[in-house]
């Protein structure tokens, strides 16, 4: 067992990256993720690493491109507007099959939006985000501990599959302090014979490039990427179920929203309602099979998001519209109280007016 500390979610991510062997962090200030770059500015010199404050999110993510191409474990972090700027590099990272970790501590959009927690970047995160046919692995923690654990896992996944991994956190998880056990974990360092390290005796030169002008070769490259994505879909899906055996209604939520849903579910069950929950931990690949399986046993789904409804589309696709799916969401950085969610549960279960206490 490692040391247990009271940490902000953002700090947990930064420390996990260091423990995972990341020695190159490139960032740019934006709220609500500033604790990551500030933590790195202090921590990286202690371990002989690099924390560089770039001139923009574009530059920071292209520095990650360079560091990843050179074979290092590299990370950058930002929030909504900054993540939009990083999409250029993320597309190149995906095309060049460069492993790295990108953290999005989501805030409310669109535009400059606000600095309070939201989940409106789901589409951007799970559909690739930049130009071209690609995906990134998307991990969605729901606590500071899980942010820590998933950050460590993110680096191993990135190296194993040669893919950018996105950690999709939010302003609430990033800012709130929770107990974090700094579990020592041996990073799975892989050799990177493709990296641009300088020849140093190697016979043939390594070139990391994303321009492929011959259509037949570019199609081959796309097919290779797609085959990798299918492999990841088959192996790396993560989710958590609670009370799905007897549930008539399944709540679906990720990140901070799942914590609120958890409270509402407990309150509903305490009062005899068969409510369960399915929490995707990987948003891409989406746990489609788990949904299909649960759909066989339950009557309906209620999807809860801090957005106008984005993940709800993946739920509908997964269960092939075989069960009714309701949606409840707040936007603009507003966060519902668990009583609000409980009221929605009652409405969906046809018990409107029987207000139970959360």
């Amino acid at each position, binding site marked *: 067992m490692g040391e247990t500390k009271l940490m902000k979610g953002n700090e947990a991510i930064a420390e996990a990256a260091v423990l995972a062997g990341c020695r190159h962090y490139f960032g740019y200030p934006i709220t609500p993720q500033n604790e990551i770059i500030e933590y790195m500015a202090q921590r990286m010199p202690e371990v002989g690493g690099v924390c560089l404050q770039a001139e923009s999110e574009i530059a920071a993510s292209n520095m990650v491109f360079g560091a990843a*191409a050179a074979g290092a474990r590299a990370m950058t972090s930002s929030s909504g507007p900054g993540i939009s700027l990083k999409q250029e590099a993320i597309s190149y990272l995906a095309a060049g099959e460069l492993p790295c970790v990108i953290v999005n501590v989501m805030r409310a959009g669109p535009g400059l939006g606000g600095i309070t927690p939201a989940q409106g970047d789901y589409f951007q995160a799970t559909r690739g985000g930049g130009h071209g046919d690609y995906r990134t692995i998307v991990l969605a923690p729901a606590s500071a501990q899980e942010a820590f654990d998933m950050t460590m896992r993110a680096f191993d996944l990135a190296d194993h599959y040669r893919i950018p991994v996105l950690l999709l956190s939010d302003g609430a998880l990033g800012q709130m302090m929770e107990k974090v056990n700094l579990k020592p974990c041996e990073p799975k360092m892989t050799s990177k014979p493709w990296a641009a390290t300088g020849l140093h005796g190697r016979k043939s*030169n390594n070139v990391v490039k994303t321009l492929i002008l011959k259509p037949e070769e570019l199609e081959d490259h796309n097919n290779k990427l797609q085959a990798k994505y299918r492999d990841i879909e088959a192996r790396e899906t993560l989710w958590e179920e609670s009370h799905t055996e007897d549930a008539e209604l399944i709540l679906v939520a990720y990140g901070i929203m799942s914590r609120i849903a958890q409270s509402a579910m407990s309150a509903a069950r305490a009062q005899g309602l068969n409510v369960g929950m399915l929490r995707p931990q990987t948003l891409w690949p989406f746990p489609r099979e788990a949904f299909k399986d649960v759909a066989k046993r339950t009557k309906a789904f209620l999807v809860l998001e801090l957005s106008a409804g984005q993940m709800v589309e993946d739920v509908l696709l997964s269960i092939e519209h075989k069960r009714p799916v309701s949606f409840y969401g707040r936007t603009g950085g507003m966060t519902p109280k668990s009583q609000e969610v409980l009221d929605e549960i009652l409405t969906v279960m046809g018990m409107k007016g029987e207000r139970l206490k959360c």
Partner: protein
Amino acid sequence: MLKTETKTKMRTFSRPACIKPVVYHYCPGCCHGIIHNLVGQVIDDLGIAEKTVGIASVGCSVLACDYFNIDFVQAAHGRAPAVATGVKRVWPNNVVFTYQGDGDLAAIGCGEIVNAVARGERITTVFVNNAIYGMTGGQMAPTTLAAQKTTTSPDGRDALRAGMPIRVSEMLATLDGAGYIARVAVNNPKNVFKAKAAIQEAFLNQLEGRGYSLVEILSTCPINWGMTPVEAMKWVEQTMMLFYPLGTFKNNGRQSHDT
């Protein structure tokens, strides 16, 4: 001062060892071929091929990574100094250089080059200025001269609407992080030798940890300029050099404006 000029020895022409025996895709009369060879000669002469990583940019020289026998990374448009920063911070003992055109460096990549120089990154930039976007078919660049006709300034660059060109070397030489900044040309054999000396000085600047180094090389684009290769070389000398004077603008932190 281009002090290594006198050290150039007579020798039989041969392809630099760090350049692959392939045919360049560049147009007739384009100077990229000459400049590639100069960079290759300098890498050979300094014996640094084993520890050099090149960063290709977007534009005609995007395929530079296919021509060198050294490790290369191809960057997004304008981002070569950021990508180079990433590589250099991982391998500080390697030699890292970017090879960028004027559209890439002076327009979309202005933020990256200015800040990389300001940080004093130990990187070298070979900056090829032909006053136009070559690969996309001859559009106006930040370096396009006043009244110069391009496909997006068909009546000539209107300084009142499009402003005057950016003198990149002079601008970057004002930054404390710059160790060596020079502008050269390859329009005649004498200038080719001077250009090689400047490129060598820039790489030495990096090897000795004296901050950022950049060599701006006035180049041609006969196809998009609508000239023959010979006319293009004359245009470099008679028109470009009036606005872009050759010289060393920064050396070892010492400001100078000799030509």
